């Protein structure tokens, strides 16, 4: 084992791969938050009056709210006045019209991240909306999407070009008073993505957003709204990275999904924000509200997430199963290594008849990591024939880490069938021994076993993301066996 331990040490010492800072001049608001900042953000974005009113309402609501404390995460209090609420790469003129006009340094950044922008985008067949700090930088493949009738643009553009859709759907899934961070996001969100898939359209390609926090002391508050009209289908991917810094940075996003009759939305996330160093210094606080509303009959919303980054992950992608026969799915792999903390899970609210939900959550804890699954399955009195299956498995590596399960099952209908299963285990010595005696290194063996453990989730990811997720997991975990 001696040599493999050395290998492990080398890999442990490996630095966060995405921890570079791009040297771009940026326009950043001074830190602090008051009504003027909200007005200023709205003015910079040249938003119509209804947006400003909405933001101000959210801001006033936020001022009355208290920071929630119930999650099983520990962190020093966030000083909301020391964060800058808007940071944009400086523009020479009025912003890029096409990819060629995008600052080459930015493109280089995305190259380093390995996201398929520009030519690579075409090969990968992915349309990307890249959000750099707070503003959306470039959206590829607009033309092809427009031909299909799909609207895929940055949120600010959508506010200007499709105000009627924004006004109709914004805040209908996550209302501004929903929670502390959702209210904050509603007041100060700077950009994000908007997708509208019209009736009967199957979106011709996977849509994707890449988020990156670059500037120092900024918070990222993006907002994503996806509306799938009757009979439509869309698959959306989201990836996230941030540079290495000693300070903690706040990321408080809101994602709203609306699926109308017979529509289907598949939302995949590979989250790799900077997790902090091995002593728990720095890293992103990822406090996100994600919710999907299966508003129509036979609609389906599927969340898949691979959470390997962030110092603290605190999010619960949820489904409101309002329409009859609607389906909600949640597949999650959450990894907490070093001093990372993850409190994540889902809510499935069964309202319509014959609604079904599946929850598969895989938590991996290593080092001093703390990983919690927290979920709610609620079956309301009208939800006849509701069905839920929940499986939460935890894998522990090392005796300093923790794995926790906090499920809630609230059942108010006698025809419901709700099942919950959870197991906790470590990588068994037998499995490891079996691999070692066949000449597989301890590290590879652990990777194999972990990948096997997560397989049910990975197979839900679009192919290119699945590969990335596997690699990400391997990198994040290396060094935790010994």
């Amino acid at each position, binding site marked *: 084992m001696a040599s493999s331990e050395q290998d492990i040490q080398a890999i442990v010492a490996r630095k966060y791969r995405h921890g570079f800072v791009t040297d771009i001049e940026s326009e950043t608001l001074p830190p602090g938050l008051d009504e003027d900042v909200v007005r200023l953000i709205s003015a910079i974005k040249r938003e119509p009056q209804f947006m400003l009113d909405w933001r101000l309402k959210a801001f006033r609501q936020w001022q009355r709210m208290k920071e929630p404390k119930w999650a099983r995460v520990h962190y020093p209090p966030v000083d909301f006045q020391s964060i800058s609420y808007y940071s944009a790469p400086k523009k020479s003129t009025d912003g890029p019209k096409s990819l060629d006009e995008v600052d080459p340094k930015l493109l280089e950044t995305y190259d380093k991240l390995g996201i398929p922008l520009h030519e690579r985008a075409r090969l990968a067949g992915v349309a990307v909306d890249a959000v750099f700090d707070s503003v959306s930088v470039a959206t590829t493949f607009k033309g092809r999407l427009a031909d299909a009738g799909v609207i895929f643009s940055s949120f600010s553009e959508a506010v200007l070009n499709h105000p009627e859709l924004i006004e109709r759907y914004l805040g209908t899934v996550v209302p501004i008073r929903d929670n502390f961070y959702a209210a904050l996001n509603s007041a100060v969100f700077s950009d994000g993505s908007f997708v509208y898939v019209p009736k009967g359209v199957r979106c011709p390609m996977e849509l994707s957003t890449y988020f990156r926090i670059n500037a120092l002391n900024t918070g990222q508050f993006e907002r994503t709204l996806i509306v799938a009209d009757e009979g439509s289908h869309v698959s959306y991917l989201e990836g996230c990275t941030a540079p290495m810094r000693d300070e903690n940075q706040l990321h408080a996003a809101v994602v709203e999904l609306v699926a109308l009759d017979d529509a289907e939305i598949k939302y995949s996330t590979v989250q790799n924000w900077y997790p902090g160093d091995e002593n728990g210094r720095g890293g992103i606080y990822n406090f996100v509200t994600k919710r999907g509303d299966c508003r129509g009959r036979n609609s389906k919303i599927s969340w898949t997430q691979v959470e390997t980054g962030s110092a603290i992950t605190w999010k619960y992608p949820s489904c409101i199963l309002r329409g009859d026969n609607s389906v909600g799915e949640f597949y999650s792999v959450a990894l907490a290594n070093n001093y990372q903390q993850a409190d994540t899970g889902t809510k499935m609210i069964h309202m319509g008849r014959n609604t079904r939900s599946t929850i598969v959550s895989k938590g991996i804890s290593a080092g001093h990591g703390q990983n919690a699954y927290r979920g709610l399955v609620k079956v309301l009195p009208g939800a006849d024939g509701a069905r839920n299956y929940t499986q939460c498995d935890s894998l522990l590596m090392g005796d300093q880490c923790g794995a926790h*399960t906090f499920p809630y*099952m609230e059942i108010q209908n006698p025809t*419901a069938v709700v099942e*919950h*299963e*959870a197991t906790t285990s470590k990588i068994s010595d037998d499995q490891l021994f079996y691999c070692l005696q066949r000449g597989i290194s301890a590290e590879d063996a652990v990777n194999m076993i972990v990948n096997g453990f997560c397989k049910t989730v990975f197979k839900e990811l679009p192919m290119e993301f699945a590969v990335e997720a596997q690699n990400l997991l391997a990198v994040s975990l290396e060094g935790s066996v010994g």
Partner: protein
Amino acid sequence: MSVANRGSTLERIEQAHLAARGRLRGGAAWDRRRRVALDRLLARGLPDRRDENWKYLDWAEIDRRNFGLSDRSRAPGELLAGALSGLAPANTVVLIDGRFADDLSAIGGDSGLTAESLAAVIERDPESLSRALRVPGDDADDRFALLAEAFVDDGIVIRVPDGATPSGPLYVVHIDTGREASHARVLVEAGSASRLQLIEHFISSSEAASLSNVACEVTLAEGASVEHLRLFQQGENSVHVETIQAGQARDSLYRQQLFMLGGRILRSNICVRLEGPGAACELHGLFMVDVSRLADLYTVIEHVAPHTRSNELVRGVATGRGRGSFNGRIVVGAGASKADSRQSSRNLILSPLAEINARPQLEILTDDVKCSHGATTGSLDTNQLFYLLSRGIDPETARGLLTFAFCEDVVARVALPELRRHIEELVVGRLPDRDVIKEFV
């Protein structure tokens, strides 16, 4: 529940305390102890719906109760005879509204087992009892124990000397008689390598809106074994809240079996700490809630020492407007390697207005453990139902049989045959079409 209402409940508690103060035992030291508990309770308040561990409770119903301490110690004799029918245990203790009834209690045998009135022990030896009896903490889950502490005066002290193995069970009957509250303390100390079978039976002599609040502590020394069976059969309006703390030394075994088959509200906080290597605990529970009964079971099993085992099994049946909730926390501490913990919660929900809430929670802080839990909620299996129907059994009976079989999961684990029989009869009595089912079981 509004905060203003809450305030008035606390005021009533304070008034009840003032009214009772003069007649409580133990001298100045115990008066002080009660006062400290009251002050802490008043400062922190009772938990409420916003508290995650108390959110499913019917607080309006509890706030309607009287918190004043009852001083009755008489109960109709026939009630007692009825409760004991067919069991005829050698050792019986009766508590009426939390007060030890000397004339109705009898402890025989020479095994060394003692069961005394807590009031008598306070008067005889206030200091040593003060050391033995736990002072409840500030945790919200301990708030009702704090309430009991503020009124501590009577209850029962059960001691089994080292190595003693009484031949028969100790049978403790708790009787609620009226509209006042009872705040009984139960202290059980099992010496090393001793064995105790303790049966607690909760009944009431009237349909009055009573509140009984029990704070119970069980300590098991090395190698001790305690089987603790608890049967709830109170009247339609009685509210029972209890806080049970068990501490287990090396190689001890604590088995609790809880049957909620009556009463308006049962809220049970059970906390078991496995403090010595090799300690094991088993918690079995069954609640049947119908009409507008509510059962709220909250259990915490803490694995502190290595090589500890726990097995928890809870079954719930909700019909009518019944509401049942099970909140089971398993905590495996950083030092508890090789812990083995299993938990299973299964619930039947049989009517449109019934409700089941389940929260099987795991908190694990070390890696070398085996932990699993499963929870299901649903209706009867249609295949099983069809099987019985296809054999000519009518639907009502078939449903009753399947429900009975579901409850048998827990009832069958009762060790004493006559008691198991008794509980089976009670379970059948709660099923629709009971007469037909009786023929089968």
